[in-house]
């Protein structure tokens, strides 16, 4: 048994706990982005959807007293904003990247406006499952408080992996995203499929937002999201558009995001802001390593404007 009080063990444990706790929003948003991009579109507005989802979840949880109703509301808000992105980007000459930036602004604006009355009151939180009762160490016990949304996210990533690979729906979506001309020639309704993929992707991002406001950090305020929605786009590139890899990547990002608080827990406080920037640096480094100027990435959907 290693010494549970040595700083290194505490640091590793809080990184492990953080990986699980912080990763869930990354996981949901990246799965949503993955699905959207499989259809050949990029939705940078998932950041706005994440914030809207967080606000809707918190507001509905407070008003109805049921956090799960909040999760449903967050999903619906995501579908709604996803539909807006899908529909407007189906118009000719509208850039999906630019409209994503607009949706980022609109989504956060709406969330801040409508969420103003909900900053003060305390809404009921989502319960978590205690898997660590056997452990004598309070840190380990704490780390194993796992939320059901995380479990759902893990299951979802495997289901999506299977769905995209082995179902008719998944293959149609991939065809639309890889080669629109072929899909059109085969008579598939291109626009409708893309809009549906963006809407479902938006739903996932909305649920990711529900985790932010109802689990961790577990409150609603205007500084709730720190760009997780946007980093998820880079995360999908890192995961090479594979849902199960999104899971591992999300855990890695979660650990990076937990670095600042984890170092604080063992008394390192000097470079607080710098350690908190770890996920951004990690994302940037990953993109630098993975991208090449002369060819598109392996696994990238062929119709994607992002990687061209």
């Amino acid at each position: 048994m290693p010494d549970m009080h040595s700083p290194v063990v505490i640091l590793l444990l809080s990184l492990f706990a953080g990986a699980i706790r912080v990763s869930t929003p990354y996981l949901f948003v990246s799965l949503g982005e993955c699905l959207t991009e499989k259809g050949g579109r990029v939705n940078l507005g998932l950041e706005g959807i994440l914030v809207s989802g967080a606000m809707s979840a918190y507001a509905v949880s407070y008003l109805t007293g049921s956090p799960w109703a909040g999760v449903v509301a967050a999903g619906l808000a995501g579908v709604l904003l996803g539909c807006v992105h899908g529909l407007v980007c189906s118009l000719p000459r509208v850039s999906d990247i630019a409209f994503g930036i607009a949706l980022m602004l609109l989504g956060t604006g709406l969330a801040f406006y409508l969420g103003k009355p909900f900053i003060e009151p305390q809404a009921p939180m989502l319960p978590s499952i205690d898997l660590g009762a056997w452990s004598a160490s309070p840190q380990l016990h704490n780390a194993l408080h796992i939320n059901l949304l995380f479990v759902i996210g893990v299951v979802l990533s495997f289901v999506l992996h299977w769905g995209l690979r082995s179902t008719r729906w998944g293959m149609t979506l991939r065809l639309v995203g890889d080669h629109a001309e072929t899909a059109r020639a085969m008579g598939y309704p291109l626009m409708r499929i893309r809009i549906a993929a963006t809407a479902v992707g938006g739903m996932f991002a909305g649920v990711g937002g529900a985790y932010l406001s109802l689990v961790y950090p577990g409150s609603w305020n205007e500084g709730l999201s720190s760009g997780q929605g946007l980093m998820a786009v880079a995360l999908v590139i890192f995961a090479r558009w594979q849902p199960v890899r999104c899971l591992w990547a999300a855990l890695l990002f979660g650990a990076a995001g937990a670095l600042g608080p984890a170092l604080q827990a063992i008394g390192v406080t000097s470079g607080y802001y710098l350690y908190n920037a770890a996920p951004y640096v990690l994302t940037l480094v990953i993109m630098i390593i993975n991208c090449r100027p002369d060819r598109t990435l392996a696994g990238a959907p062929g119709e994607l404007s992002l990687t061209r």
Partner: protein
Amino acid sequence: MRLNAPAARLILSVLPAVPTVLALLSALALFALFLLVQGQPALDALGLIFQGAFGSSFAWQNTLLRASPLMLTALCVALPAQVGLVVIGGEGALALGGMCAAIVPQMLPPGTSWLVATPLMALAGMLAGGAWIGGVGALRQWRGVNETISSLLMSYIAIALFKHLVEGPLRDPASLNKPSTPPIPDALMIGPIPGLDMHWGLVFGVLACIAAWVFVRFSTKGFAMRVVGGSDRAARLVGLPVNQLALAACVLGGAAAGLAGMFEVAAVQGSANASLLAGYGYAGILVAFAARQNPLAIIVCALMIGGIQASGSLLQRRLDLPDATTLVFQGLLFANLLAWEALGGRIAAWRIRLQAAALADVPVQLGETHA
């Protein structure tokens, strides 16, 4: 509809503004609807936005104070857009530019004349901003890293660096409640334009936009940049130095945002502190898109967006609306601006007809054009 040549020329000159005007109108309509649904007095709110933006000399001052950094941060989007890059990291370039400008006076001997110090501060700000966004451009051209994502990440990193340095190594021990760098000596502060309650940043913002417009429109390098923006492949085929041009556009854009930071520090805040992170970099994205990446149109659009932001406090006071109200309006405006881009094909068809009418002096049928 029959048109003579002068009328055709007139319509031709306002044609590029048509989607922007339509977007503004539809955004206003949607915003009014949004307020009406909640039982808010929509017309009063629209009136107050106008009043809070341009209704009094105080409103104008508030608007201009916001518009001048917006002109410079919008250039940080519009210049890279000439080579086809979507850069959205102006906020970080502004923060670093402001911070670097703020530490220059400490390195100069006390009593240095503003004639020496102010240009050096501007240079420091521009170098910092230019290097930061230039890095984004370099990553794009030589590593193929998507510039939209990397510029925002670089912006987050810049803001973290800014907070770390301003609250740590560069902090003035005397700034207790609000961590700041040591204040800039009064002699080095940039004063108001004579006769106006507005600092010189406005003049430099306007000049920068005009210079950028002349550069993009009339210089060979500017033309080359637009060729790259039109088609990367065509530009390479005719032997243009695509990578250098893209890098130059990013450096110039970043320098503009850095200069905005310098003016915020040297004319408004008096030191680098968290008030610098007021979102001018992000609002500049909206300004640039509203101006359809035309540097000259940025001047007008910066006044418009600056005005909308300035009206926020009036809406809050009079109608008790949340401070995010102007954010909702800006979001709706941005979304509508892009949605009306769909009209582009139709407009191109009109332009060809109008050009023919303007040149040939022959009346044309305008009603039957189809995209």
